């Protein structure tokens, strides 16, 4: 039961990943791509948590923390760039 639910989680996460990747590829503007980039980063955090559960190592969570930071800073950087490119 638990195992099955974990597989379901992975499958749903993979679907989410592909959908967000679709938005990243289709665009059309850079802002849309950044939004997709943000969502992809957040989905990757879920991936990291799943990997940590599968391997049973809590130390992987440090990397997830860095990811949360990264998604924020990346979006802010690109927004800053976009605002000045009018």
């Amino acid at each position, binding site marked *: 039961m638990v195992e099955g639910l974990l597989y379901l989680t992975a499958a749903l996460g993979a679907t989410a990943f592909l959908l967000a990747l679709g938005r990243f590829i289709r665009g059309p503007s850079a802002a849309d791509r950044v939004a997709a980039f943000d969502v992809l980063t957040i989905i990757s955090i879920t991936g990291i948590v799943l990997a940590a559960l599968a*391997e049973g*190592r*809590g130390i992987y969570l440090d990397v997830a923390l860095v990811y949360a930071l990264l998604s924020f800073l990346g979006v802010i950087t690109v927004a800053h760039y976009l605002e000045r490119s009018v």
Partner: protein
Amino acid sequence: MTEIALATGFLLILIGLYGALTNRNLLRMIVAFSVANTGVNLVLVGVGYLRGRAAPILDATLPAAEAPARIIDPLPQALVLTAIVIGVGTTALMLAYAYRLYLTRGTLDISRLRELKW
């Protein structure tokens, strides 16, 4: 896993080199280089991976006595860590030079820079 990583890494190197050699815009070339750089790192880490083994960090679940039988090769990881840091240094240098070139020549198109033609 190793095979996946190796194949992806090799393909990334090829894609990156293709981009670096066929694009004319300097910034695009640098982007392509950074893609190739990622590919090389992926290949190196992939070579160090052993199936069914854990990360080389000891904790409560991985006591020191069991380490040789249970961890993967730590050496490529240390190497790649260094490579990534140096990679960002070289990228920053390339970018600074590209900016300087843009200021003096007013262009980033390498086909318009005679001295660099090959």
